[in-house]
């Protein structure tokens, strides 16, 4: 007899996320307090609570390709309000790491480009370097005129350092970054 739809529980993705984030996704009962409090709900597609549903369904590709994980600011309002102690920001941290490791285009390439530009300056100098971050970010996203007027105001008010701060033991930071690359699963 044909069994109709071949439905099997898709636990592998769920278990991986729970293990890596330390968050009990399985406990989510969709009360949606997290989405109600999330400042970025208005732009997220899907909402943060729906992302958890998709994780339970094993929809790995849709989850990793969503813009939700890149629009999450990490404000932890969801974690403070969830009756089941689920901090979605920690789940999104893991999902972004997986999305980058997959090599596919990020759901919000601009956010990914910004994070990477910032970290590139930290790897180089040991401290972040705003002018460098902005330069790299503009190269990656080809957005040369965005915030130009604001940037000039910053320079006029001496708010933007035009030369980087460099730490003495910068070699230690380079080794930390090397280890970090090895540690990515």
């Amino acid at each position, binding site marked *: 007899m044909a069994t109709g739809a071949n439905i099997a529980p898709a636990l592998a993705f769920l278990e991986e996320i729970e293990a890596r984030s330390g968050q009990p996704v399985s406990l989510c009962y969709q009360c949606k307090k997290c989405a109600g409090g999330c400042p970025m709900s208005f732009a997220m597609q899907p909402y943060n609570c729906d992302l958890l549903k998709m994780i339970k369904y094993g929809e790995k590709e849709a989850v990793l390709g969503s813009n939700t994980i890149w629009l999450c600011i990490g404000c*932890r309002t969801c974690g403070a309000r969830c009756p089941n102690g689920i901090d979605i920001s920690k789940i999104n*941290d893991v999902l972004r790491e997986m999305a980058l490791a997959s090599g596919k285009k990020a759901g919000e390439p601009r*956010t990914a480009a910004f*994070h990477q530009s910032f970290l590139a300056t930290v790897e180089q100098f040991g401290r*972040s370097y705003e002018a460098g971050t902005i330069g790299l970010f503009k190269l990656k996203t080809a957005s040369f005129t965005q915030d130009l007027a604001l940037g000039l105001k910053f320079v006029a008010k001496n708010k933007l350092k035009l030369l980087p701060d460099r730490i003495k033991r910068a070699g230690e*930071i380079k080794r930390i970054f090397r280890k*970090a690359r090895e*540690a990515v699963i």
Partner: protein
Amino acid sequence: MKLTYYPGCSLHSTAAGYDDSTCFVCRTLGVELAELNDWNCCGASCAHATNHFLAVALPMRNLILAEQAGHDVMAPCAACYNTLKTADHAVRGRDGQAMTINADLEEIMGAKYGATIQVRHPLEVLGSWEMLREISAKVVRPLMGLRLVTYYGCLLTRPKNVVAFDNPERPTTMDKILTALGAEVKSWSYKTDCCGGALALSQTAAVATLVAKLVTEAERAGAQAIVSACPLCQVNLDTRQNQIARPMPIFYFTELMGVAFGADASGRWLQKHIIDPAPVLAALAKGE
């Protein structure tokens, strides 16, 4: 009191006024600060957003250096405070990944973090009852008549089991400090709503919407200015009010402490603001 000072990258660039005013206020109140030698960037939201190893290892290197210096470490940036505190908490809780990273750092630096010091934010240091008494005693120019709302943002008070110095959604430490300076602190519901600072460059339009909401609500609460304790919030709120008809100045709480203490340098700090706070303070000078 002696503390190790971790300024973080922002206080060395966009938030120089926060740096200066924090140091001034601490000096005035007898809190001795010594800057952490050879500190590195904590990785901010960019590390935890993309790489767990960096999110723990970058702050942990600073904790190791601070532990060697022997005092509690104070970080005025809410993002730095949060990442340092999170790494410290992970080591205290014997988190498996944190232990591995700690061992890796021992290999790289020749020392590991033993969690024998505390990570503190200036609000926590300056908000104790003893300090509040000292603060009132130092006021030479009370902020009488100045109507403010306090804005803590997201990273200072959450997650509540990690940072735990004030209520995660209705904190009051900054309110007490500003009240001690003589200001009128208005009540509002947006103290810990996120301003989106971490995504200000990459999601500019969405972030402008968050900022507009905060400023509109502050105005509705009857405030003349918003007071912040984070360089990412302050810069974001100070620069993204383009949707607002009457932009509102954004102070650091330490700047207002400096003003009330009669700091000569306060003019220099305030000149760095994009939205000029002088008109709000001018009314104060005239006793209006």
